[in-house]
């Protein structure tokens, strides 16, 4: 043995006797510890109480948080149910009955003029434009049950929940929301994506270390502050710039919302882009592509599903954002596609009216219906982002045939 090892490195020779020396006590300790026997006794299942309880508590907390979210949704959803079931009919019948007696009393005491008076009191703007609209629904009030009126008016073009003859047309609100979302995503998405592309592909490291946290800080900006800024500064500035009539409008609100959405889109996009394997970039550069070509033809397409998800997240944020729109859009529920007119969004409606509504009233229920709508919208957006992007990324990065 030793003679064979001799043509190796001399260091090995020195080690040999050493290992032999330590070899002996090692054997004796082995004898000592070799008492261990594989048996039912030594390998008995052991209870570890602290670990057991820790595990259970963590499980409990996890399920609790999920349950809370579901319960919130169930609550919101439950409050909307009366609109569709007969329950609300009684309530609203009661309330409308009161109103009717009120109206009747008024009608009895005086003439039909009073009715018109009452209507104009409630809605100064709409009487002219919606006069034709209000007439049929008014006459229907006597023959058709109240909840049917509500249901019918849900698809209507007028949102007038507190008039004598309440109408809950969600259309202007939905249009307002879509308008704001469109305007603000048109501003936010290109800006955020290009900024992310710059930060991920072109900026020197020191600059990147400034830009990224700076934009991410904006995500933590209280939306009230953004709204305030939009209300006081941006609205005036844009009015000077474009010379439109209404100072607070969808455009101002949309741009302000873009400020809120940019950080989200930027952060996610930037992360996705830096996550694009550097081997892609190296391969491209080694083929003689310039930095710009690499960023545009390799990094950007590889990150595309992630960028799509980022934009969806941004849309979700804009959809649910309340404070900025409440402050900066003028809050008039109008059916108009003009970006320079005031709008009222779904979320702002809840924000503005929930505090003044009668508990259990149809109005109250409709507000909850809006809440459910918002929830379903954002839920659908996130679901698309999650599943579409996951599937897409799978096919991209794991090589399923596209």
């Amino acid at each position: 043995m030793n003679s064979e090892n001799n043509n190796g490195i001399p260091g090995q020779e020195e080690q040999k006797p050493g290992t032999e020396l330590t070899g002996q006590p090692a054997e004796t300790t082995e004898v000592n510890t070799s008492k261990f026997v594989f048996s039912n006794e030594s390998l008995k299942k052991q209870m570890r109480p602290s670990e057991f309880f820790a595990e259970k508590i963590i499980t409990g907390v996890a399920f609790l948080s999920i349950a809370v979210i579901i319960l919130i949704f169930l609550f919101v959803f439950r409050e909307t149910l009366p609109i569709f079931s007969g329950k609300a009919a009684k309530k609203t019948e009661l309330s409308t009955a009161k109103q009717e007696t009120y109206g009747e009393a008024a009608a009895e005491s005086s003439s039909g003029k009073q009715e018109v008076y009452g209507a104009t009191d409630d809605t100064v703007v709409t009487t002219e434009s919606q006069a034709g609209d209000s007439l049929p629904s008014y006459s229907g009030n006597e023959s058709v049950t109240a909840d049917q009126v509500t249901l019918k008016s849900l698809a209507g073009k007028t949102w007038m929940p507190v008039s004598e003859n309440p109408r809950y047309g969600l259309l202007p609100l939905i249009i307002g929301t879509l308008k704001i979302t469109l305007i603000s995503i048109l501003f936010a998405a290109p800006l955020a994506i290009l900024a992310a592309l710059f930060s991920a592909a072109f900026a020197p490291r020191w600059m990147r270390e400034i830009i990224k946290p700076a934009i991410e800080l904006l995500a933590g900006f209280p939306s009230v502050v953004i709204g305030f800024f939009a209300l006081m500064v941006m609205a005036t500035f844009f009015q000077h710039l474009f010379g439109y009539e209404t100072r607070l409008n969808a455009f101002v609100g949309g741009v302000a919302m873009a400020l809120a959405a940019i950080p989200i889109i930027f952060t996610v996009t930037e992360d996705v882009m830096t996550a694009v394997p550097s081997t892609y970039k190296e391969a491209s550069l080694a083929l003689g592509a310039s930095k710009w070509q690499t960023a545009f033809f390799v990094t950007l397409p590889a990150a595309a599903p992630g960028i799509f998800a980022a934009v969806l997240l941004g849309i979700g944020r804009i959809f649910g954002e309340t404070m900025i729109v409440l402050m900066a859009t003028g809050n008039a529920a109008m059916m108009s596609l003009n970006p320079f007119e005031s709008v009222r969004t779904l979320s702002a409606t809840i924000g503005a009216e929930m505090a003044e509504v009668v508990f259990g009233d149809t109005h109250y229920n409709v507000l909850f219906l809006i809440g459910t709508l918002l929830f379903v919208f954002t839920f659908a957006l996130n679901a698309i982002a999650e599943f579409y992007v996951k599937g897409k990324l799978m096919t991209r990065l794991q090589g399923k045939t596209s």
Partner: protein
Amino acid sequence: MKEIKIKTKDLTLYYGSKMALNSISVEIPQNQVTALIGPSGCGKSTFLRTLNRMNDLIPNVRITGEVLVDNFNIYDKNVDSVNLRKKVGMVFQKSNPFAKSIFENVAYGPRINGVNDKKKLTEIVETSLQRAAIWDEVKDRMHDSALGLSGGQQQRLCIARTMAVDPEIILMDEPASALDPISTSKIEELIFNLKENYTIIIVTHNMQQAARVSDHTAFFYMGELVEFGKTKKIFTVPVKKQTEDYITGRFG
């Protein structure tokens, strides 16, 4: 002796304050395969990357000395590294096809060089794939994702992609280190056939591979070029003791 393609003069490279290459002077002949061997961290990959200026991408790298390709210093102030890399292609250790179709992968290089004619592109893609000896395996699924190929196929696709931009020199950084023996032998055969048209420099940890495919071998150790010469000579009668120790497997 063939013509000299690449010549380095006192090439020294620092990562920050750490010296990674210490005045390397070497002459690499044209249309031959030159193998760079040496233990991990000895600077052979760094040396390879200086030849197409990929090290420019790493911050804090400082380079002195000269790299002459066809007697032209590629570290001259006016050299555009983008145009340089079109002539000095590179194949990486880990096969890195883009997440695109096989066709698009090979067509990418010509495309960024302004070839947009569909017919011409198809032609370039076809000849590149044929040269890389992968055409028969992929011709029926040109528009499938390249990521669906096996590791060896991916690596040959990357070689085809490199050839599609028509380089003169191809640098290979351990191109077969992650592949099974069959794929490896295919790559080696490919390298052997490619040297007719290209000057090839290959980094490898596999001594047998160096012996099999290369005409010249450079042994690097601790950022220094220990020995350079004909592969046959290096593997049979090395001049330096260190080279002999490394080749026979005593250290490294």
